[in-house]
């Protein structure tokens, strides 16, 4: 029932955005809708945690601790992002950078995008999950190309072609899981008796043919890995995440890539029972370390804030993949905490970059100077956000990264931890260097005297509601990093879904 309600509220947002032309009121209604969705998803998580999994709509939808946790993350980032969409669109319309119809399309597609993500995590069938994840690509393509200039169009073209291919590969993986299942039951039929339900697959996982499962899981990892921004098909991510409007980047970087990883986790649970843990462990380590290496080497040359943040997303997905490789219950719980923590902080940083683009007129690192003195609140949020992203306490990313690495070490992956730490040290140095430039004026730099900030009158005031919600977001991250109650038990129970 509660699942239906969550989906209904989200669908209401979609219909509302489709029917009404964009006005600020519509935007506020949509934000409120997403906040209601957030509250409902918290209630769902609480209920599922105490009473066990629930299904609805003839078992089409299914929520256990894991899916309700993911729904919570989606709703949290959506609520945050939709507040900024109002701000972003009002500004764009004020400056006549966009038309009313384009703004209306923007909100409709954004709500569809959120709805598709919710379906992806709440569906009981891995087939429906696939359809929903493909639908997220369709909904976001125009959002990536929203600005309509060459770079944005190039990014959205790359995005849809690469992701369609990637998700197509995941479909082959799904087909072969189904193939293994039909052979288990000794007859093929057009699916009325056999379904692609995840619960069914996991119950029969022990009897599935191991060779076929290996083959299928390889495709799943490659395919959904594309959407999660992992190598080898990651190249769309920095383009799409840097070209999309900031609230969309926040959603894509904060939660879409982890929804794709959620799909990998679901299949990993099946594959681990059939094959033992080593198979997925090896594949995830290879993909994780290569992604980390790529992110750390390409971060050095970045000249633009959003692109820098995009490479950070690849880095954190790599950390998540490595944590999932360790595979113990504690490790998976840490992975989920990292999904939440990274999603929140990354969304905040993208939203700050959107505010910076509005107030300073640029997001290029070389053009931004001494943000901390010219805009103390915005600069402060950005600084703390970066510290959180780098994994410093008290923010939750510290505890999740620490726990993931500890779990990796306990299952004998000490060399992975060592490699990770070296690469993260490189990233740390690079980001500190970039952010020092952005936040604090460099007095030894001769150019800084030539650099004249915009005359104050032409600057835009940053809005109080937006900075307020960002500060609340950062505080949530700090709170879940220091206080384990009540999240810890939910995370452990969600992790148990995967580890069995």
């Amino acid at each position, binding site marked *: 029932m509660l699942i239906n309600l969550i989906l209904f509220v989200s669908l209401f947002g979609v219909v509302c955005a489709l029917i009404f032309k964009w006005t600020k009121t519509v935007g506020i209604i949509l934000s409120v809708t997403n906040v209601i969705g957030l509250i409902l998803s918290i209630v769902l998580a609480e209920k599922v945690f105490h009473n066990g999994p629930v299904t609805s709509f003839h078992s089409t939808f299914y929520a256990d601790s894991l899916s309700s946790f993911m729904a919570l993350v989606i709703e949290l980032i959506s609520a945050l992002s939709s507040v900024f969409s109002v701000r972003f669109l009002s500004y764009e319309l004020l400056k006549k950078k966009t038309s009313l119809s384009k703004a209306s399309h923007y909100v409709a597609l954004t709500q569809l995008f959120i709805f598709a993500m919710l379906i992806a995590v709440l569906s009981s*069938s891995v*087939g*429906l999950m*696939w*359809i929903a994840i*493909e*639908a997220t*690509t*369709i909904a976001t*393509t*125009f959002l990536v*190309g929203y600005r*309509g*200039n*060459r*770079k944005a*169009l*190039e*990014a*959205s*073209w*790359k995005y*849809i*072609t690469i992701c*369609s*291919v990637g998700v*197509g590969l995941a*479909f*082959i993986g799904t*087909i072969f899981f*189904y*193939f293994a299942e*039909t*052979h288990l039951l000794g007859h*093929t039929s*057009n*699916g*009325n008796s*056999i*379904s*692609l339900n995840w619960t069914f697959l996991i119950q029969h996982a022990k009897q599935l*043919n191991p*060779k*076929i499962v290996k*083959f299928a899981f390889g495709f799943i990892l490659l395919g959904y890995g594309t959407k999660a921004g992992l190598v080898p098909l990651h190249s769309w991510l*920095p*383009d799409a995440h*840097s*070209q999309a409007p900031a609230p969309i980047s926040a959603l894509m970087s904060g939660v879409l890539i982890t929804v794709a990883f959620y799909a990998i986790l679901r299949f990993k649970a099946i594959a681990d029972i059939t094959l033992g843990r080593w198979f997925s462990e090896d594949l995830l380590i290879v993909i994780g370390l290569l992604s980390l290496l790529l992110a750390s080497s*390409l971060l050095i*040359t*970045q000249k633009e804030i959003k692109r820098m943040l995009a490479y950070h997303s690849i880095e954190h997905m790599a950390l998540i993949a490595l944590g999932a490789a360790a595979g113990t219950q504690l490790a998976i719980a840490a992975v989920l905490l990292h999904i939440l923590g990274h999603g929140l902080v990354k969304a905040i940083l993208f939203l700050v970059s959107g505010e910076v683009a509005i107030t300073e007129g640029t997001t290029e690192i070389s053009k931004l100077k001494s943000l901390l003195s010219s805009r103390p609140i915005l600069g402060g949020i950005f600084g703390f956000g970066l510290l959180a992203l780098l994994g410093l306490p008290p923010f939750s990313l510290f505890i999740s990264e620490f726990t993931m690495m500890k779990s990796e070490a306990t299952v004998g992956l000490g060399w992975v931890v060592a490699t990770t730490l070296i690469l993260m040290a490189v990233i740390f140095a690079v980001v500190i260097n970039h952010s020092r430039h952005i936040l604090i004026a460099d007095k030894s730099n001769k150019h800084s005297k030539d650099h004249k900030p915009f005359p104050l009158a032409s600057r835009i005031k940053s809005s109080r509601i937006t900075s307020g919600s960002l500060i609340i977001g950062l505080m949530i991250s700090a709170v879940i990093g220091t206080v384990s109650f009540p999240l810890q038990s939910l995370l452990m129970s969600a992790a148990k879904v995967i580890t069995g």
Partner: protein
Amino acid sequence: MGLYPLTYLSAGSVLLFAVIILWRKDIKAMVYAVSLQGITLSAVGILEALSKHNLALGQVGIETLILKGFIFPYLMFKIYTNSGSKRDTEPLINTTASMVYASIFIAIPFFAIGRLPYVSSTPITKLAPLGFATLLVGLFIIITRRQVISQIVGLIVFENGISLISLLILSGLPLMVEFGESFDLLLVIVVLRVLATTIHKEFGNIDLAEMKGLHD
């Protein structure tokens, strides 16, 4: 035996048309070929449905026929008439080399997929490598062609390969998944069409080689 020879013929033709698309640079010819590929793909589904008396599979076959045989090619022609470019002038790899690669892509699945358990167990599932070969040729088209339409055609060939695999080894997926997948694909093609038109307005000539604004 029954309808097996016809199924073999249709499944083989799906791959054949993929190779023809790779071979031809004339965009009109490519679009015709992708339409014929859709028709042969639907024939595989319909023949399977007839031999197994499977109504659901028949529905999938007819849906494939309408969508991939006619609607997609129609949308392609729309882009084609908008763009004005008749030939894919500069693929990254010339035709002869492409054909050599194609032969490798066709050989690999027959070695690799054939080893999987159950795949060689029935006369129909044995054909699964054809689907993988089609998929790889489609991927190769996406990577090596620089024109917007060629890339979309490559994507359709890739998806046709996936459909062929699912038809051959499973006699289709649950109907909801089958239709959901087709609907998604239709939307992807529609989105690509709109995007192609916008790119055409912005860039003039629809040549993806000119899109070099983003790279590291």
